[in-house]
């Protein structure tokens, strides 16, 4: 072993010495090329089935719009819940704070997959009770996309409550005093002074949450197969005995989507941190 170690050491020395004139970016490019070649080899090793992809690829990719729709809906709901959650946790009212604390604690303390299955499968139990009036069926039985938005929104809303709370608390006490001294009520102060300033702090991490949700939305596939991106991949992959092809395609698409949104999220973050960009018009 010592001999091997010494040989490796000498090889490393020679590589380092030989490449010392090469720019770091070029080295990095070489590494990426190597990884790409390895990945292609993996695809060959699995005997990547082009015919399967041609036949089922479009069906799997057809789940993308729904995945995106679920995530946009989910993040919108999460932002609303996080706003109320944060205001509740900072409220002087025991009722508001109690409800908000319970919401955050319960949702963060239970697995997302359980929440999804609960909303999709457990709630209809109420609708199907013999004694239940029929309108409950319209309340407790959701189409899968709606259940997904509900589950992801509620779950992410609980995590984002802390983001929103931090954003609100980042607004200085002097701002609140100034608003109060001008005769504003608490509600006016929150709406006109605190929230517009908190938005600066809240937006970048909310972008990160959206990207995380994009990946977590795959859990919907556990509840209902064949609907969104992962559900379709899993369904066809297992059904056609080609799980590698189907899952690799889904993974690539998630990676591509998260990369695109990360790119925009970074730009947004830079724009905001550069200072006095107006996110919300003052309204005058």
């Amino acid at each position: 072993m010592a001999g091997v170690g010494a040989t490796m050491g000498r090889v490393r020395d020679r590589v380092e010495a030989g490449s010392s004139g090469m720019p770091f970016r070029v080295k990095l490019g070489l590494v990426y090329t190597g990884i790409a070649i390895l990945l292609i080899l993996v695809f060959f090793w699995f005997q990547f089935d082009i015919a399967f992809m041609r036949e089922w690829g479009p069906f799997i990719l057809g789940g993308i719009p729904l995945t995106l729709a679920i995530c946009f809906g989910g993040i919108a709901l999460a932002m609303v819940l996080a706003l109320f959650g944060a205001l509740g946790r900072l409220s002087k009212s025991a009722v508001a704070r109690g409800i908000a604390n319970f919401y955050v604690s319960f949702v963060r303390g239970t697995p997302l997959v359980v929440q999804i299955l609960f909303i999709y499968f457990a709630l209809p139990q109420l609708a199907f009770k013999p004694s239940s009036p029929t309108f409950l069926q319209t309340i407790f039985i959701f189409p899968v996309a709606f259940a997904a938005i509900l589950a992801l929104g509620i779950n992410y809303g609980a995590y984002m409550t802390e983001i929103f709370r931090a954003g609100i608390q980042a607004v200085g006490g002097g701002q609140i005093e100034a608003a109060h001294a001008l005769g504003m009520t608490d509600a006016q102060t929150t709406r006109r002074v605190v929230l517009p300033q908190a938005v600066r702090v809240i937006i970048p991490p909310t972008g990160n949450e959206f990207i995380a949700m994009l990946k977590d939305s795959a859990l919907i596939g556990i509840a209902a197969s064949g609907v969104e991106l992962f559900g379709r991949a899993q369904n066809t992959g297992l059904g056609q005995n080609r799980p590698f092809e189907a899952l690799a395609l889904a993974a690539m698409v998630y990676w591509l989507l998260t990369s695109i949104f990360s790119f925009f999220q970074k730009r947004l973050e830079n724009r905001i941190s550069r200072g006095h960009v107006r996110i919300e018009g003052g309204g005058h």
Partner: protein
Amino acid sequence: MDPIIRVEDLEKHFGDLQVLRGVSLDVEPGEVIVIFGRSGSGKSTLLRCVNFLEEPTGGCIEVDGVRMEAARHVLRARREQVRQIRMKAGMVFQDFNLFPHLSVIENLIEAPCVVKKESKGEAREFGLQLLDKVGLAEKADEYPIRLSGGQKQRVAIARALCMRPKIMLFDEPTSALDPELVAEVLEVMRDLAKEGMTMMVVTHEMGFAREVASRMVFLHEGKVLEEGKPADLISGARDERTRRFLEAVL
């Protein structure tokens, strides 16, 4: 004339710490009261009690006919009364507290529009007049971050005036400023005093006090130790502690 501000036996505790120990003070309309004293003497707390940024723990405050006893609980009706007082009492803070997300003119008209439901046009017109008065008409559409400290404080004064207050409270308005910017802020305050605005000013600017104040109040350990006309107090303070403080700051 009836006093416009009446402070009676005011007490303020922060937990176990008693900051105000029975302060009484009447302010007539048009008076300029300079409150001074050592750090920790309670002068800022006294000012902040007048518009209830601090809730008094004892005594009574009356502002323009609205009389408020110290209360253990702040209920809805009291909050509304406090708001009435705050609309009559403009406040200027040591560190300006301009709203950074709003332009200068938006800072001015925010409260008139939101609190008094004035129309934007009306508020804007008055706001521009005020900016002109504090010498910042050309900065109306600038954002606070682009202003110097002195300019910020003048905007803050104009913002408070935009609510058409009957009294103005100044909490160390020049303490956060670079020395060369102090004069421009004092100039605006001097003009305001000349127009007959009732003012309570916490400051260490003894030159300003000598020239503008109708009365000076020396606070010491939460009590009014001495008060009088600036000429009398500055040259002939009766109490040894007032004299020592004046020697230190003059």
